[in-house]
Structure formats: C-alpha cells, structure tokens
C-alpha cells in the first residue's frame, strides 16, 4: 500500500495515499465531531486549511473532497464566528441598499480577491461582494447559489465580511421578491383548498388493493 505523511495540526502520521483529508484523519485515530457533516461536499462543515512543504501558499478546501498529498500540513476550522444581523424577510424590501444597510462592512472590501482564492466551490466570491455593493441582488444570488457556507472566505477576508450571511439574504430576497411566483402553484393551492380533489381522493382511499393496482396500471404516463 502506498503511504504518504500528513501533519495533522503539526503532528505527522503515515496514511494510505488516495484518502481524503477527512478519511486520513480518521485513519490516524481521530473521532470527528466538529469538522465533519455530510461527507459529500454539501454542508460546509469540514472547512480545512493546509500548506504543502516547500510552498508558501495557504490552501483552503473541504476535507471530504480533497485527497491527501505527501507533506501536507492540515488544520480544520471547527467553527466560523460570523455576525448575522436580526431581520425578518417580510419586513425587508429587495432594493439596492438593503444588503449594504444590513452589512455595512461590505464597503470595506479592498478587492484583494483572497475570498475567491479561498473558495472550495470555485465561486467568484469577490464579484459577488462587488455585486452586493452595487445592489445587484439577482447577480449576488446567481453567483453564490452553489455556496456551502463553509466560512473559508470569511476567515480570510481582510474586510471582515460575513459572506455567507450576505449571500443567504440576497438569495432569499431574490427568490421571494424578484422572481415571479408560479401562477399554476397558486391556482392549485386554491383548488385544493376549494375541495376540487376531495371526492377523487376519497374514492381512491376507499379502494381495495386489486382495484388500486388496476388503477395504477391504467394510468397514462406523460412523455
């Protein structure tokens, strides 16, 4: 078995090559509580920073999605302190100033692009900050849709922006106020409330298994 040496918080361990950082830590004997969630790249719990020997750069990635390399120095972020201002969506308006008034630190962005380099999802984070400053809510929502709130950009940001909270608000404003409602959904809700399907559901519920199987087989399937 090929092995590599990784340094978990500075202490060296030999682990099989090809493991993810998360599995390498477990192989070494760590029982994870912090720094481990969905194990599939969706929840953002396993934000990790690392350096490689002979390389000045500080890399940032998700432990569950990154393969170990020989000479990797690893530390996980157990938690990202980040302020989320109190708001109720129904009391806000999707206007140009909404994001900036709740998150005034956005204006401190120095366009260093460190956030973008830290993003494990390869999002254009700095562009999203700039879009927030311009009040372009749909732009922010689109640019940050794949954000998993891992907090890596927030921990690297010299302007001390709490990015994922800004993105969350922008997406909700976009979904609730800047996107047309589906007319067919509203219509169906009214039909259900008006009892349009009650009799048919009553009839189906009264059926025995054989009758149900027949009805199931007879249903037409939309292409």
């Amino acid at each position, binding site marked *: 078995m090929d092995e590599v040496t990784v340094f978990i918080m500075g202490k060296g361990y030999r682990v099989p090559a*090809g*493991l*993810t950082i998360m599995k390498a830590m*477990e*192989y*070494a*004997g760590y*029982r*994870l*509580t*912090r720094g481990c*969630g*969905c194990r*599939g*790249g*969706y*929840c953002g*719990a396993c934000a990790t920073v690392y350096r490689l020997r002979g390389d000045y750069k500080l890399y940032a990635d998700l432990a569950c*999605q990154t*393969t170990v390399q020989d000479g990797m120095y690893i530390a996980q972020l157990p938690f990202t302190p980040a302020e*989320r201002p109190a708001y109720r*969506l129904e009391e806000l308006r999707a206007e140009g100033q909404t994001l900036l008034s709740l998150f005034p630190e956005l204006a401190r962005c120095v366009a260093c692009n460190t956030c973008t380099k830290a993003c494990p*999802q*390869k999002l254009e984070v700095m562009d999203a900050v700039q879009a927030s400053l311009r009040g372009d809510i749909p732009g922010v*929502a689109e640019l940050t*849709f*794949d954000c*998993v*709130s891992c907090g890596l950009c927030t921990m690297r940001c010299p302007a001390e922006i709490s990015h994922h909270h800004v993105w*969350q*608000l922008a*997406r*909700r*404003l*976009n*979904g*609730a*106020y800047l*996107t*047309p*409602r*589906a*007319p*067919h*959904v509203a219509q*169906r*809700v009214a039909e*259900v409330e008006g009892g349009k*399907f009650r009799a*048919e*559901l009553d009839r*189906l*519920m009264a059926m025995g298994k054989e009758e*149900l*199987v027949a009805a*199931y*087989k007879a*249903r037409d*399937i*939309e292409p």
Partner: protein
Amino acid sequence: MSSYPKEMQESIARVEATRPARLSTKFPRLPLPEQETLLKGFHPDYRPEGKRRLRVGPSWGESVPHELADLLEAYPLLDPKAVDVSRPDLDVDVLIIGGGGAGTVAAIWAHEVGIPAERILIATKLRHGDSNSIMAQGGIQAADRPEDSPAIHYLDVLGGGHFTNDPKLVRALVEDAPAIIRWHEDLGVMYDKAPDGTMAEIHGGGTSRRRMHSCKDYTGLEIMRVLRDEARSRGIPVLEFSPAVELLTDSQSQVVGAVLWNLETGEYAVVRAKATVLATGGWGRLHIQGFPTTNHYGATADGVVLAYRVGAKLRDLDAVQYHPTGAAYPDQLVGLLITEKVRGMDAQPLNRLGEAFVHPLEPRDVESAAFIRECLPPERGGRGLGVVTPTGMVGVWLDTPMVDIIHGKGTFQRALSSIYRMYIRFGIDPTVEPILVYPTLHYQNGGVVIDEHGWTGIPGLYAAGEVEGGVHGKNRLMGNSLLDYNVFGRRAGIAAAGWAKRAAPGTPTLAHVERYVGELRAAGIPPERKAPLLLPEYRGEKALARMVDLL
C-alpha cells in the same frame, strides 16, 4: 485526456459506439410481474440472511436488518441510575430533537401557531442543518401543473411503495404538497423557473407526470438553508452538538422531554418539555449489508431506538432504500449520491458492452435490482456485465454526455453543477465521458408509526421526516422525502404546539428505560451491546487497536 484507467477506457469506447443508436430509443419499462421477479432475485431486501426478527419491544417478531436489530436489542448508553432526571436543567413547551429539515420545519410551525420562540428548543447532534435534507440533490414533488393532480400523485406514491403505504399519510403528503411549494416561494427558495414564474418540472423514477421541482442539483441545500435562516429570523434557540440519548417519561407514561448529552464536554442536560418532536433522520450510517451510503455522518437511527424504548411501534423497517446511482469510481467518491435528476435528464445506464439493460426511471428498488443483476457474476445468477475498477469495485455506466447532446451544450454544468464539480475535482469531465455507478444505501423507508398529525400514539411524542414510517411504505420515490419532511414537519410542529397548550407533564423519569432493560435481560441480550450509536466508527483499525482511555 481521459483519466480513466485503460481497461475502463476500452469499455467507454463501446459506450461511445452505441450512443448514436441509443439517442433515438428508450428501453421499455418493465411490467409489474417482471418488476417483482427482478426484486425477488436481486434486491438486497430479499436476502433472508440480512435480517432477523426482533425479540423485544412493541414490534416484537417483526423482521429488521441485523444492523438495526443490534441497536434495538441493546442496553442504554446512559445508565439510568447514574443520573438524576427529576430536576430539569431546561423547561420548554416544545422540544425538537434533530436540526435537519423536519425539525426546523416543525420549529417554525410551532412558533407560527403561537408558541413563543424561547419556549421552543431544537437540540441537534451536529450543527443546525447537518442532515440528509441538505444533501438532497434532485428535487421535491408536488402535483401543481394543470396536467397533474394530487390524485395522480397519490397513485404514483402508492404504486412506488408497492401498495404498502398508509393511505392517510399519502393523502396528507399529496394534498399539502402545492401549499408547501407556495410557502417555500414566500420564504424565498430559488426554484428553477421560466421567466414568467412557471416551475421547471421533470420526471423522477416512478412518476407518471412531470412534477419534480428543483433548485439546480442543490435542491436540498437551498431549501434547508432558507428554512434555517427563517428559524434564525424567528429567534428559535438551537443547541448544537447535543444529541438526545434518552427520552423522558412521567408516571402517566407521557413523553416529557429528553436527556441531551454534550458531545464535546460529556455533560448531560435534562430538558423537560410539554411536547417532544422526534426529527432525527435515518439510518444510512449503519451500512446495512456492508453497503456504502449517501447519508450524512449522523444518520445512525438514534430516534428509532429512543422511540422504541418508550413503546412506539415501528413499521416497514425491513425495507431499505438503495439508491441506484451511487458513485463507484474514483475511490474518493464511492457511495456518494448521483442524483436521479441525471437520469431524469436522459442519461442512460449501460453495461460494460455499452448496451442499455433497463429503463432509466424505474422505481428505485427495481432500478437498483437491475444494476445488481447486470453486475453479479453468472455463477451468482447475474449477467456479469459490470465494469470493474482497479480497486475491485464494480458498476455500470451512466452515460452523462447524453444530457448535453439532447438538451444543449452547457445544460449539464448549469443544471447539475454539484455533480459536475464533484467529478471535475478528480479529473473526470461528465459532459465528455460517462461516470460509473452502483447502488448505495440511501434511505430509511420505514420508521416510527405516526398518524396524519405526526403523533406516535404516545402522549407528548410526535415524529416527522425520515425517522417516521408509513408515508412511503416499502419504497420511496424520488422527490417525496423533501416533501415528506416539509408536510409532516409542519403537521407535527402544529400538533405538538396544540398538545403543549393543554399538556400537564409530571416529573421526568427514566422508568421506561429500566423496564426495557428488564425485557432485554429476560430475552438474554448480551450486556455489552449499547445504543443509541450517535456516531459511526471510522477510526483506523491500527489506531483503535492501541487506544487506551487514560484521561
């Protein structure tokens, strides 16, 4: 340049050779009797050696997987004599155990119907939102197009569940569905829509109408984070890293809260509650029959164990959902979910020879059984036509380049960006080359018995989401789990709030646990077996073998 090993590339060449002809044809759906034969022959649920009958508790005699039976026939992790639960550390109206989708929805609706935020508590094992809910990719069903109706949805759900579902629960599911989607619109969920607001809806396995709503392939993430943000807006308190290790009962056998355990400091806390909602999710991390899983780290069936000890009945836990398309290559991705939406967008499953062998959208259990038959060697009854990887995994191809060929260049990256990202990280471009898949443990079809209000039949105890059973019978269709946790999370939250307004809880005790221990002893269960599991064991064998507890 392909990053697949040479042997796999030879098979990819065959996939490419058959593609032009396959673009214009679709493999026919199987008639019901043939579906049954396939299931009986190849679905893991039909292997009798995988299960045993329970020897204790309210579902005595029912057959469940060994991995779950080992947890139900197990002694409490927390010695009931070691703690004093009579004086609560916290007192609330509604305690919600589990901070995933179901728990968060229940909390929001308990608040909505009048329980003050500070009288609600969400206690969760990991972080708020860490759950299977956040990992769901493909979508959520609701019959809201003119061509569709709740009645058609009802039939699809029952057929998918092989007519074993609880009809009352199915009716609640399909009737509430459109209102759930509208509620999500109000909360700001960014569904995929046409410019005029019309929902983009596609098919899922076993649906007879296109009713799958999605948010790219991050549907679960988008809904979960919006719900979490809404709960935060309402100021609902959340205790993270605090799993429940036991429920509490009073002298009237009502459930009156739970004992929580701080995963980091080891402290316990007694929470007294007028109503308790179990929303602990499923069992993927039990790795039933050795399968890899799509599930999050905390999916260890804790809620089923706790509910069983207070006398809740269980159902359909003999039925395990294996998602047909778990990643089978590269090794780092093994077991991870490849959403059904990929097949919904016309990628075909193919064998080593590049031949189609099953309709892409059979119900999940049928599709999984077909994959297993294709891969098993002939001496075990299979066709031996799987693709073998260098580390010995086996799988079938999912012809992902078809998505862009059929729907236009750029579609895959736009509509399936999480899958695209997952593979690009490992040098595989799914818009150019197919990906290898094999069934993976995905969902707990059954669970705690509830009525249409999420009530378990035990005063004070409600359940919602994957922990409960009956909604899906023995097989859930894609897009009905996100719907389930919203519909029954809401119903359980409202019912729990209603109960909390009139409940009179007595002094908390662990008397039910002591009774259960008596039953275990009488049944001769080995004393070293403990539950709930809380976390799976993934530490390396070498490290574990030398581990001693000194401090």
